[in-house]
């Protein structure tokens, strides 16, 4: 169980792993995530699901090496086994039927965005994807996103690829150009905060997928709690997606720094 079937390096610190997890592959839907433990003494970390193949019984994870556990996972190779993979957890994305959707992802946030892009496109939406990263090498899954998007806008901080500028500039151009029914944003908390502030100005409904600290991922510990619309919510069971305009991003950023 949970054997790594293939591995691909997106960049020095980002890898794509295809992992055997037949039950999860069958029941997962866009928006879901998993909890992964790399070894018998490992920690439980939440990872988003980038793709799944129920026939082959595998799921695709995109992992960025940021801490000890993610570094260890990124160092694993095909044939190795993850100790535990639990899921699919969280609530699935509400897929919009028709209309124009801007899907904007930053860094590895593009990975969980991909299944949402696919589902929105399949449901008849006009999908405009905005992919953003610090530099060209960190833009991931561009080909897959292009396959399922009507238009793709690339933004890099250093201008090494696509347009130079922040993700918000790309999103704002679209908003100024045409009617947008919904925005979906997944990426670093600070990025989602500014996307949310932008779309609030234009009163466009916006969904953000939060990546807080978690332990069990099933509602038991409350480590992932955040404030949405002035009320306490648990990202693992109430989320991970919330109305971005209601999320207290400053509190979330403060809690992530712990």
């Amino acid at each position, binding site marked *: 169980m949970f054997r790594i079937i293939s591995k691909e390096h997106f960049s020095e610190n980002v890898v794509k792993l295809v992992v055997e997890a037949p039950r999860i592959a069958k029941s997962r839907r866009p928006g879901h995530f998993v909890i992964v433990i790399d070894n018998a*003494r*490992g*920690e*439980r970390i939440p990872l988003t699901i980038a793709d799944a193949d129920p026939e082959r019984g595998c799921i695709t994870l995109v992992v960025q090496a940021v801490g000890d556990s993610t570094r260890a996972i990124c160092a694993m190779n095909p044939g190795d086994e993850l100790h535990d993979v*639990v899921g699919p957890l969280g609530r699935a994305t509400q897929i919009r039927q028709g209309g124009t959707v801007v899907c904007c992802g930053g860094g590895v946030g593009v990975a969980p965005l991909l299944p949402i892009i696919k589902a929105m496109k399949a449901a008849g939406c006009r999908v405009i994807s905005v992919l953003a990263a610090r530099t060209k090498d960190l833009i991931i899954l561009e080909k897959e996103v292009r396959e399922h998007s009507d238009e793709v806008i690339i933004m890099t901080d250093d201008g090494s690829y696509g347009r130079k500028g922040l993700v918000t500039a790309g999103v704002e151009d679209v908003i100024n150009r045409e009617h947008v029914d919904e925005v979906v944003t997944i990426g670093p908390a600070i990025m989602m905060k500014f996307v949310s502030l932008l779309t609030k100005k234009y009163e466009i409904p916006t969904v953000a997928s939060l990546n807080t600290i978690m*332990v069990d991922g099933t*509602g038991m510990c*409350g480590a992932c709690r955040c404030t949405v619309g002035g009320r306490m919510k648990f990202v693992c069971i109430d989320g991970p997606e919330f109305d971005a305009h209601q999320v207290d991003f400053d509190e979330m950023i*403060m809690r992530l*720094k712990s």
Partner: protein
Amino acid sequence: MNKQDIAPRDAQWREELRQALTAKERTSIPRVRMPELPADWRCTTLTHEVNQGLSREMAILEATRCLDCPDPQCVTGCPVGINIPGFIKNVQRGETDEALRVLRRTSALPAVCGRVCPQEKQCESKCVYLKMKKEPVAIGYLERFAADTGHVGESDRPEPNGKRVAVVGSGPAGLSFAGDMASRGFDVTVFEALHEIGGVLKYGIPEFRLPNSVVNSEIEALRALGVRFEKDTVIGKTLTQAQLEDMNFDGVFVASGAGLPRFMGIPGENLVNVVSSNEYLTRINLMHAGTPGYATPVFRGRRVAIIGGGNTAMDSCRTARRMGAERVMVIYRRSEAEMPARVEEVKHAKEEGVEFLTLHNPIEYLGDENGRVRAMRLQRMELGEPDSSGRRSPRPVEGAVDEVEVDMVIVSVGVSPNPLIPENFEGLEVTQRGTIAANGESLQTSIPYIYAGGDIVRGGATVILAMGDGRRAAAAMAEQLAAK
């Protein structure tokens, strides 16, 4: 099963034991004291059990105190109706194997219950000694003694009856159900969401109160009976209702536990280092945070406040001491008399240097420039009239607010039902509180093939009540399936 059919009171050996000493001689024996690790030493270790267990001599003497009453009231205080004099008199005559056999008739996890049951509120509260203004027989200590030292051998695997049942959750309710059904010949599969089997017995109750080895040996006994465990499986998610139905189980018992930690909704509760007791205990007990070689981090507070007065609060404060905290405070809004924790836990916590700020209630947490908690504001309270629960309800003393420095707060004010199962099972009725609605007798739910018990039905109770639910549900489901 007839509870009296082994160790009957009219057996000759019991008659002889009763005749051997007069009541006066028995009642003049003082209650045994549980050997404990010294408080200053045990505070330095997470892994050593505080209570060391009775020696054989101590157990036999304590068992001798039991008067073997003709109408034993202790039994009425036990949620599963253990034949208490029956096992105690077997301890007295040195037949610990037989004593354990008596316990196993009604309790699936005697080694666990002997350690974690609130005996002073159950069996021991009914002991005839109390009427004589003496300390009750130490039933809990004796239960633990019999469970730890007795051997019943592996029960033979019963003839399979061809029916398959599933259990959701491997805590006390799920394990007791699994054991009962396996002994009846059912093919039992237990699904557990976490990566370890045992539920609250593993993630919640610390090693110094209930060693994992005790829980593991119970689990091994179930495996020997043929019970299968599938971890990392969240029912309703990993396996949806439809997928579970496709697996053609004849019945399902949902014992998914209490779930969501409650918070108080006061300012500053989302500051960094304000955590739920579930999070704190899960990190340390289940994930082994703080043990070298394990990856899970945990903050080591120096001045730690635990909010609440239940057993989980006691587990948390004693764990915080062992994690190196210099000052540990239990903040409880009522007085010590109303505290729901077991008396022994409060005693142990005090011995370990935990301060009890009773009649205090937090109203706000204050943070530093990094968003970390640095202080709490405590409202002093006084007791008013008894409320609906019979406990005198606390009310604030106007203007009496203290500010106390803390660098960690562990909130332990109870749990709400986890919505995972109710939300993902169409047609499953829930109560207003969000618990699964189950028939009071049979524990059958609104979906006929699903039964439910433990905290997902009770909303937050004890290990023994959860176990009792597992028993009752097993009996009811077995009967329903036999009638098919």
